[in-house]
């Protein structure tokens, strides 16, 4: 009898414990994009769930534009479908100002937020408050083929000017053997050719808008930037460049068809990867070019970051997940599994001080220099009313940037002149900015 009662009590206690465990179980839905680093994080989730047995993680991986569309709808309607979002430096300031994101204060002590690269954490903060934690960051730089440069008898300066780039492109081009001096983005889109052209225009001293939000495509600086871009691409670029984006140029470079490629620093780990690149051991790096006498290297800065939407019902658990995924411990976890080369770059100072990382990643120093040099609060040497480096951080920019990108892509395809493309961009942008209420 006694034993039966004891057994019954034991069973009741077990059931109660199970009940509590079930009640505490939290499922986090993490929305992300299909980039190599994100997929790696997905594979390492078990490390987080082992440390937090009461939390399970569900992943939703979507194409970048679909993700942006889905998340925007969900936040605008207070849907609460997601607990952690993967967004970039473009969205963070805009969404934070709309109070769509939860401020990331109260992160654990060992998180060491001061270790985050200052340029990156500044781009993800509004009024000094961090609204998203960087998962990996990037700027832009020149990647070039050392063997072709040597054969052509040129030495690439560590900080080249656009004139140096043109001379190098001319010397390296060998169209008979399908080697093109320079590969640049031409595919229309605010995040495609306009990311590059906005950075290039910055380095020419141009700006998108003056202090009254009047578009500046009729300026001398924009004209010089676009004319030089078209000149470079027409004479030394690959055929059909107007449909080349990041992925297409990556493929061309990996196949050994580009002498130089100026693009996101994150590409450095792909082009030096012996498994996928035929030119892995023949690549070196230089800073994003500037116009002679202009102290501006484009100010390109992007960081895929993790943020919590205000509509999430599980903000505490979400914060724990973000603290895990963007911690120093996570970087060490990746290094222990896949080597230091695979560690997510561009977020923490400590990574760049690590001698193991420095020796395994030949691009580390140049990447850090590029990120540190980027000033997203003032991307042009002229006065500007906006923030953002290779983009303008206003909600209208996606539409306007893509429309302007289409004009410039058409100019690259030879369908119109640089002057026509610039005046079409000026008219189009003026109309949209007036409609949106910026120009009174």
């Amino acid at each position: 009898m006694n034993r039966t009662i004891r057994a019954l009590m034991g069973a009741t206690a077990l059931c109660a414990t199970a009940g509590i465990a079930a009640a505490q179980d939290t499922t986090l839905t993490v929305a992300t994009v299909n980039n190599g680093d994100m997929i790696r994080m997905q594979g390492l989730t078990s490390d987080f769930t082992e440390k937090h047995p009461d939390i399970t993680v569900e992943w939703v991986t979507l194409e970048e534009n679909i993700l942006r569309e889905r998340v925007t709808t969900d936040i605008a309607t207070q849907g609460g479908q997601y607990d952690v979002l993967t967004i970039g430096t473009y969205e963070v300031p805009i969404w934070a100002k709309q109070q769509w994101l939860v401020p990331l204060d109260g992160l654990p002590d060992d998180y060491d937020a001061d270790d985050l690269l200052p340029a990156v954490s500044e781009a993800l903060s509004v009024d000094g408050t961090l609204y998203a934690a960087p998962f990996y960051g990037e700027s832009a730089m020149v990647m070039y083929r050392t063997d072709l440069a040597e054969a052509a008898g040129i030495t690439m300066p560590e900080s080249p000017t656009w004139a140096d780039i043109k001379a190098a492109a001319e010397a390296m081009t060998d169209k008979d053997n399908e080697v093109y001096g320079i590969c640049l983005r031409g595919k229309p889109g605010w995040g495609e050719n306009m990311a590059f052209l906005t950075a290039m225009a910055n380095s020419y001293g141009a700006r998108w808008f003056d202090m009254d939000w009047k578009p500046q495509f009729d300026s001398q600086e924009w004209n010089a930037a676009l004319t030089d871009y078209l000149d470079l691409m027409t004479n030394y670029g690959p055929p059909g460049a107007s449909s080349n984006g990041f992925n297409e140029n990556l493929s061309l470079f990996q196949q050994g068809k580009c002498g130089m490629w100026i693009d996101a620093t994150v590409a450095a780990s792909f082009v030096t990867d012996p498994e996928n690149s035929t030119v892995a051991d023949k690549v070196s790096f230089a800073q994003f070019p500037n116009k002679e006498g202009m102290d501006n290297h484009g100010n390109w800065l992007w960081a895929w970051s993790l943020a919590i939407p205000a509509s999430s019902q599980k903000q505490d658990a979400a914060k724990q997940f973000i603290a895990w995924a963007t911690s120093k411990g996570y970087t060490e976890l990746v290094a222990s599994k896949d080597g230091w080369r695979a560690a997510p770059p561009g977020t923490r100072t400590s990574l760049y001080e690590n001698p193991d990382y420095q020796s395994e990643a030949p691009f580390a120093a140049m990447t850090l220099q590029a990120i540190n040099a980027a000033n997203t609060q003032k991307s042009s040497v002229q006065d500007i009313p906006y923030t953002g480096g290779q983009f303008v951080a206003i909600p209208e920019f996606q539409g306007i940037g893509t429309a302007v990108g289409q004009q410039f892509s058409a100019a690259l395809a030879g369908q119109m002149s640089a002057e026509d493309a610039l005046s079409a961009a000026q008219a189009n942008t003026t109309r949209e900015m007036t409609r949106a209420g910026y120009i009174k």
Partner: protein
Amino acid sequence: MARAISRNSKIGWTVAAWLVALIIFFPILYTIITSLKTEQEAIAGFDLIPSFSFSSYETVQNQNNYFRPFMNSVVIAVGSTLLALIVAIPAAWAMAFSPTKRTKDILMWMLSTKMMPAVAVLVPIYLIFLRTGLMDTRTGLVIILMLMNLPIVIWMLYTYFREIPGEILEAARMDGATLRDEILYILTPMAVPGIASTMLLNIILAWNEAFWTIQLTTTNAAPLSAFIASFSSPQGLFWAKLSAASTMAIAPILILGWFSQKQLVRGLTFGAVK
């Protein structure tokens, strides 16, 4: 001589038909070929001979379990089709056999609902789904896809029903058949080829739908359209993996289409040659 010419022209037409079919099928074929390459081969340029590497399939399966979205696709496509038929058969019957002055206008109105871009009603539908708890559920997707394809289903059935002589239904009625008997035992068996092809076409449309199925799901009810979308990448090359994911997503519907092509063609040309 005449016989020879006709044979030559027959061969000519056959070759032309095969050529056209090959051109249409080629993108799918090349997707399958690319899925059997390594990533390095996939980016290396045009090549029709793969190295038969199955590593992409393995990676895709490890990264995203295929069977959950697959089952969701099956339930959503079949469920929405059956529901659409239940609604559309009586509607098409009424329009075909008891037309009124306004029948043509109603048919045109129904078709006109297809002309509005889906994104225009995204926010209201999103809100309705949120408030009613239909978000990220198979039931919600079955309902929305049924509503989306209903105009086409009614139009197709209406066209088939019009081919059936009304006298046969009248005869059944004189023999004492009720409305239910008439639809279930007389009309439906006679219209089987038409219903079958409508059903197949609707399953294909629902299977391939990639707007609502992505917008209204997150994890639980996400079908194969969301599965493919997760393999598209802005940075980094995943062509072989993307091709493997696409092949896995289209394989079931391709096999279904292959086995039912006779019914499909018969149904689609039903009445056209009379």
